């Protein structure tokens, strides 16, 4: 009785997990990728052009305000990438889908890059605004911590030879690490009050930035979302191909021997 119910439940979701079958994954991502690239192009490029050339300079911000169109989306993606990594790691740990582990590996590099971009653009923006490239402000600090977590995660991937062991251990690290990363994010609030303003993109109208800046920013945020999907898909496909190539090489060596 219990067994049939479990199987029925599995059956209902089989269509979903079939997407993660490596062969099927390659075929549907191959078809979907050009569409996502197209969406990225039509959102990121107009968003950036709109933001850079067609918004007025804000009072007290001068032209430096325009770096926001790179800074905020990349920072958002950096956090999102970690979230995706944890979900993909859990999929690998629970369902043993190889695509999950490889997607987590792919998302890590994208996330690391976005973290670095956010830190650098933040430093460039911080200099005219706050008069310093770096301060131990809670948000800056938590991004630096996020950077350290990404580096540790990727170093562990690189250090372990056996791909399945590497996938298992990095998944465990991603799950445990996210708890500590979250803790650190709120821990730094106890230790220093920040330079950043409060939530400026919340739906609370009073604190929001003006519409002229808000609209192109939303467009770049959406665009960076698509960009993230594109990059992760490409990375995952590359990893899958590398895995397949290795299998072919091993098989040939077996036949030669």
């Amino acid at each position: 009785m219990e067994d049939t119910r479990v199987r029925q439940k599995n059956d209902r979701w089989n269509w979903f997990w079939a997407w993660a079958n490596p062969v099927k994954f390659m075929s549907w991502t191959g078809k979907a990728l050009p569409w996502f690239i197209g969406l990225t192009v039509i959102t990121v490029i107009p968003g950036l052009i709109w933001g850079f050339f067609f918004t007025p300079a804000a009072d007290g911000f001068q032209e430096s305000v325009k770096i926001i169109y790179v800074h905020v989306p990349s920072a958002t993606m950096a956090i999102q990438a970690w979230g995706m990594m944890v979900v993909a790691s859990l999929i690998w740990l629970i369902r043993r889908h190889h695509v999950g582990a490889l997607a987590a590996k792919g998302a890590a590099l994208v996330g690391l890059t976005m973290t670095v971009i956010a830190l650098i653009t933040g430093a460039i923006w911080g200099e005219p605004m706050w008069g310093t490239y770096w301060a131990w402000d809670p948000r800056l600090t938590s991004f630096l911590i996020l950077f350290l977590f990404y580096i540790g995660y990727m170093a562990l991937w690189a250090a372990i030879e056996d791909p399945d062991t590497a996938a298992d251990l990095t998944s465990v690290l991603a799950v445990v690490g996210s708890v500590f990363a979250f803790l650190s994010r709120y821990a730094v609030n106890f230790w220093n009050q920040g330079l950043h303003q409060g939530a400026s993109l919340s739906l609370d109208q009073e604190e929001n930035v003006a519409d002229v800046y808000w609209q192109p920013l939303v467009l770049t945020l959406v665009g960076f979302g698509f960009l993230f999907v594109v990059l992760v898909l490409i990375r995952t496909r590359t990893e899958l191909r590398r895995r397949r190539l290795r299998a072919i090489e091993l098989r040939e060596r077996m036949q030669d021997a």
Partner: protein
Amino acid sequence: MIALLVRDLRLTFRAGGGFGLGLAFFLIVTVLVPFGVGPESALLARIAPGILWVGALLACLLSLDRIFQLDFEDGSLDILATAPIPMEGAVAMKALAHWLTTGLPLTLAAPLFGGLMSLPGQGYLWVFLTLLIGTPALSMIGTFGAALTVGLKRGGLLLSLLVLPLYIPTLLFGAETARRAIQGVDYAQTFAILAGVTAGSLALLPFAAAAAIRINLR
């Protein structure tokens, strides 16, 4: 489980397990800092709790790779895995042994070394108390890191890279509590969170560490 604890303790004390090494390292760090920043006691007193915390943390890091490495090499870890006690229990005992040989001596030594750093009067008590509450978390998190890297040939450096970010909340709340207590500001909140981080680590990380050991032994 008690037998395992006694065995680990004996190994660290007798077989050149580096029992005094962590303490000596801690002493050297505390001696080096005044050379680096200058001898004014006002400055030293200000940074003393932080330096003592960072020194204890680094000294703790030093002995982490010994937790599983020797057992992995001579095969006793495989025997432990097939032993009737659950791996989670064995891992917890390993962490306890590490704390008794590293965390506890560091905690006891910290007030003594505080004298070198012109630690203010009530600071002695608070550095001692925060380390007493915080070091078990350091040992447990370190055991988890050691479990992740046990199969690697040169895991030492990677171990530090993995463990140090995980130490951030403990260090931050520990040093912050000591600093607030010295300044006479309200410290109850950070102290409670420090205890919470330790309790949470002790409750949950044995499972993660045991999972990592099982993967590495596969």
